[in-house]
């Protein structure tokens, strides 16, 4: 068997091994799980090392000053490792604080625009006059839903006044309709992804056509052993 063909066999085996998990947790799904975690971690390390090398070659080795900064960053990076030291564990908080600080800063400045200002502005800019009635109606509905849902989530107001009850009800109904539709829409993606795997198993191009050859046999072996084992255990009881 050529290496390429063996690769396809591996692909078919791991694909089906994952789906045996639907039946129950079993040695095949466990192999898939541990191989995946191991390989993915290795991939992550390789990927980061590659990234570090590119950073050094591409950017930081150009000037003396940058080289020093790069080395300093590496030294700080090593401090993470002190998490495992009983005495000096607190040192790991320094790289942590640098990381958290930078990203909290980035988050503060991006969230305010992307999630708040832009959303508020596009809601306030919804027109109800000078356009066709259907769009006007939709815009009005959108605005009301946004305002009611926002109000629904307030934490620190005693929602006792009479108007709260209909507002909250309306918000909850709108949310349920919205969540339902998002759920329903996602069915499409999930089915499509599985259809993609089925196409792989059936060897439909661009997938390697050899997969079709392996699919029934691997499926038979996996299912046969699992069902056989369970049947054997049942009858022994």
């Amino acid at each position: 068997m050529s290496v390429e063909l063996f690769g396809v066999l591996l692909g078919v085996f791991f694909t089906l091994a994952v789906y045996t998990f639907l039946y129950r947790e079993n040695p095949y799904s466990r192999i898939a799980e541990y191989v995946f975690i191991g390989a993915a971690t290795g991939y992550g390390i390789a990927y980061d090392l590659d990234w570090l090398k590119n950073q050094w070659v591409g950017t930081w080795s150009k000037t003396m000053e940058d080289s020093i900064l790069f080395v300093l960053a590496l030294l700080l990076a090593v401090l993470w490792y002190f998490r495992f030291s009983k005495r000096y564990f607190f040192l790991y908080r320094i790289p942590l604080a640098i990381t958290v600080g930078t990203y909290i800063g980035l988050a503060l400045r991006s969230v305010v625009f992307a999630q708040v200002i832009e959303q508020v502005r596009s809601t306030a800019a919804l027109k109800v006059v000078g356009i066709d009635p259907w769009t006007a109606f939709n815009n009005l509905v959108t605005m009301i839903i946004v305002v009611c849902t926002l109000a629904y989530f307030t934490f620190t107001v005693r929602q006792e006044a009479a108007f709260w009850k209909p507002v909250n009800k309306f918000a909850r109904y709108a949310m349920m309709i919205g969540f339902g539709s998002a759920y329903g829409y996602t069915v499409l993606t999930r089915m499509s992804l599985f259809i993609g795997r089925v196409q792989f198993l059936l060897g439909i191009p661009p997938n390697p056509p050899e997969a079709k050859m392996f699919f029934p046999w691997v499926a038979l072996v996996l299912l046969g052993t699992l069902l056989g084992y369970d049947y054997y255990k049942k009858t022994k009881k």
Partner: protein
Amino acid sequence: MSLLRRVEIPIAITIIFALIQVIPYFVNMGPAVEATQDKVVRWTLIVSTGALLVGLTSLLLIHVPRVTRRRTHWEYSLLLIAFMFLMTIIGLPFPELNLGLTGYWFSFFYNNVLTPLSASLYAILAFYITSAAYRAFKARSLEAALLLISGTILVLRNAPLGTFLIPQIADLGDWIFNIPNMAVNRAIMIGGGLGAMVLGIRVLLGYERGYLRGGE
């Protein structure tokens, strides 16, 4: 060292690095400051790669003893360690030796092991999305009924057969999706943004210590 032990030090570092990103973003301090800002972000990325060491060590701390002490499932742990080292070694950034992300063997394992595993797992959602709907899409109350109805309409809208049988369902489905769903998402997004901002401010004020919990 006793000074470094204090939790105020990391909090101060957090604040300084956060403000480096925030203030020049709003107040004009010239291109030099902005260049520094970007540089700090890239520099921070290098610092955070160090966490790799921690992850690697903690994985080994769990799985090596399992293998050496022959605990349950130790064979699988061995498999995990083997694949981890395998991928690391064939992925070392030395293209001269045919290693690295573009090397033959790295691509081989990427295409034939990682990809099928990842894609198949992702696709397992087709099953869960159906079983979850089967048990939870039930008209127990008006709210649940609304969820059920709008979900079903959208499923019918996306099935090629659904729109063929009931052509109007495409418009109805799109309306539900583009108006109520979009509006709800927008409101949740605004609220979420506000929550994230308040949380960020709490971190800067040194109150949110979840991530630094402990101290002395």
